[in-house]
């Protein structure tokens, strides 16, 4: 087995999908000759020609709307948004059309389409290049939202997304693009809607997705020294969400910390925390805590390490899980008066 990266796995998934189905097309900004700014489409135009993998005008709303029209004609477009924040011009097309077309037409039309979005930070990017925008899409009914945290999932989830009959927002954690793992491609992992237990543990569950998964795993390893045996659940797919796996884990451990890189307020992490307490209240020994990015515009590169949830912040949260049955209201200064 040779080491490979998430970037190469995504590239292989696109190439294999193009080879398997002539209706599949890959397009966006700089995806042709250049192979994408992250090289995810590297070599695809050479292999499949400029009718299957091509550059478009620099206009994200146009790219997504054009893809929707192509999907209506029977094709299966896979489009790339260059960065998270650069997908915002496409939001109206995504929210008002891509997400709703099946519903508006009572199933007469569907949008089998994948919108790939490199997202989140940790790469020292300047402003507008590091947003965690998954919450906007997850909050839009009609969209599936998936995000791989491993090389094997990157390949398998992307192939699944391209084959899916519904629109899929495929969020690629850009800081994981070039992390290598020993994986043989192609891979076939669990379908959408199934979370994965990345590390079994008895004492508490860390629920994470995308770029937060390796951080949660690092925290779990570090926690061993403190005597905690932490379980790490990788959601893999935010929509549909696997309540079953998450609930089973938290009921087993009785404690839960939700880890997400996105700003926390009204985000996916908040949704997960709410779902966990709705289903696990009687099994919980402590409130469900969240460790997330701060509720600030994504900071300049020199300050991003303070913003991003790290091992220490996760361990601090684990420490607050009322191991001695005493309430711990640190940091909750508003509305917590006894």
């Amino acid at each position, binding site marked *: 087995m040779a080491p490979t990266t998430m970037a190469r796995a995504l590239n292989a998934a696109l190439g294999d999908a193009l080879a398997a189905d002539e209706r599949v097309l890959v397009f966006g900004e700089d995806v042709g000759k250049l192979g994408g700014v992250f090289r995810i489409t590297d070599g695809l135009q050479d292999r499949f020609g400029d*009718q299957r993998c091509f550059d*478009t*005008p620099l*206009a994200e*709303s*146009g790219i997504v*709307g*054009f*893809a*929707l*029209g*192509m*999907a*209506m*004609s*029977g*094709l299966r477009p896979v489009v790339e948004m260059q960065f998270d924040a650069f997908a915002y*011009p496409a939001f*109206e*097309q995504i929210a*008002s*059309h891509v997400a*709703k*077309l*099946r*519903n*508006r*037409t*009572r*199933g*007469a*039309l*569907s949008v089998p389409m994948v919108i790939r979005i490199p997202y989140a930070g940790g790469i020292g990017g300047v402003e507008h290049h590091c947003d965690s925008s998954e919450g906007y899409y997850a909050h839009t*009914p*009609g969209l*599936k939202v998936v995000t791989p945290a491993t090389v094997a999932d990157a390949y398998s989830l992307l192939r699944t997304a391209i084959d899916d*009959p*519904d629109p899929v927002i495929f969020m690629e954690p850009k800081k994981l693009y070039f992390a290598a793992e020993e994986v043989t491609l192609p891979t076939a992992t669990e379908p959408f*809607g199934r979370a994965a237990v990345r590390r079994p543990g008895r004492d508490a569950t860390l629920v994470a997705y995308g770029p937060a998964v390796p951080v949660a795993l690092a925290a779990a390893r570090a926690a061993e020294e403190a005597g905690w045996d932490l379980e790490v659940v990788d959601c893999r797919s935010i*929509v*549909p*969400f696997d*309540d*079953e796996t998450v609930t089973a884990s938290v009921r087993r451990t009785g404690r839960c910390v939700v880890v997400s890189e996105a700003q926390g307020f009204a985000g996916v992490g908040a949704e997960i925390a709410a779902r966990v307490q709705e289903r696990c209240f009687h099994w919980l020994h402590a409130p469900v805590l969240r460790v997330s990015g701060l509720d600030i515009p994504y900071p300049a590169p020199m300050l991003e390490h303070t913003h991003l949830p790290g091992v220490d912040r996760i361990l601090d949260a684990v420490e607050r899980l009322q191991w001695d049955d005493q309430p711990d209201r640190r940091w909750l200064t508003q509305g917590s008066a006894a």
Partner: protein
Amino acid sequence: MTTTPQAVRRPSPRPRRRAAPPDPARALLPAAEPVRMLDEDGHRLPEQPDQPEPDAGMLREMYRRMVIGRRFDTQATALTKQGRLAVYPSARGQEACQVGAVLALRDNDWVFPTYRESMALVSRGIDPVEVLTLLRGDWHCGYDPGARRTAPQCTPLATQTIHAAGLAYGEARQGRDTVALAFIGDGATSEGDFHEGVNFAAVFRAPVVFFVQNNRYAISVPLSRQTAAPALAYKGIGYGVPSEQVDGNDPLAVLAVLGRAVAHARAGNGPYLVEAHTYRMEPHTNADDAGRYRDDAEVEAWTGRDPIARLETYLRAGGVLDDAAVAGIAAEAEALAADLRTRMQAEPQVHPLSLFDHVFAEPTSQLREQREMVRAELAAEEEA
């Protein structure tokens, strides 16, 4: 370096007079004035060699559809007053555009309508009740867009222009000779998606006709607040798209210009932009008060350019229509209105659980849970 006297004296070549190369941009420009074939009273203007006379049978059919379209439109407005429709945006006065666009297309071409195109959809043969489903409020789209080759009526402005470009390009890639026609209003040409749609269509040479019905108002805002261009048709040249402007209340000219535009697209020459100068005789919708932003004199002036009256005058003069034919068509329109009234009296049956049917191809477990909750609520209501 030395030079010989001969070389110095050698006469320089006489500058040859060359004709200036043709400016390719000029071919993209619309005529300075809207194309017209009928005057305001319906009399044929002097022949223009590049405007071939539309077929008399086609014009008679156009008249028929325009009369039926107007009657449908009037009936729909009446249905709002009876509480049968939540709202209705009328296209009264725009009949030549609504019907002309449909007649310029083949059945297997695609139409991308906005909310103001109900009349065009009826003219396309879609059941009027299905056309009004959106406005009655029992579902968002009442017809099968795939079967009718007609996208759902689009409310977010200009977004459909890009869909038309993508669909037309997709069809062409798959070897089909489909043309897509996107309706759009004057106000929506200010939206970014209009520009992205025209640009994408041009870059990919997609067979699309962008058909701007400039009816002078975006709800209350006049054209002068939308653009400083001499006409909206001039927006094509910046994208390399040929354009034309036409008197949108002149049925002959609308049919001729749209016919040319569709032929251009179908021949593989890429998109075409048509601006029709017309007028929205009614308020934006039944909920609007047009008296707040335009005066009666203006409306009166446009009443004198009525497209149905103009076409009727022309066809009667040519012996294509007579009293009996006009009466027959009017009776047909009345019958459609009566049928629509009757069928719209029925309360539509929509089951609440159908809310969950088409969110995804397969419902998520979260949707199954919510469906179960609603099912239990309904069961409890039934028991009570």
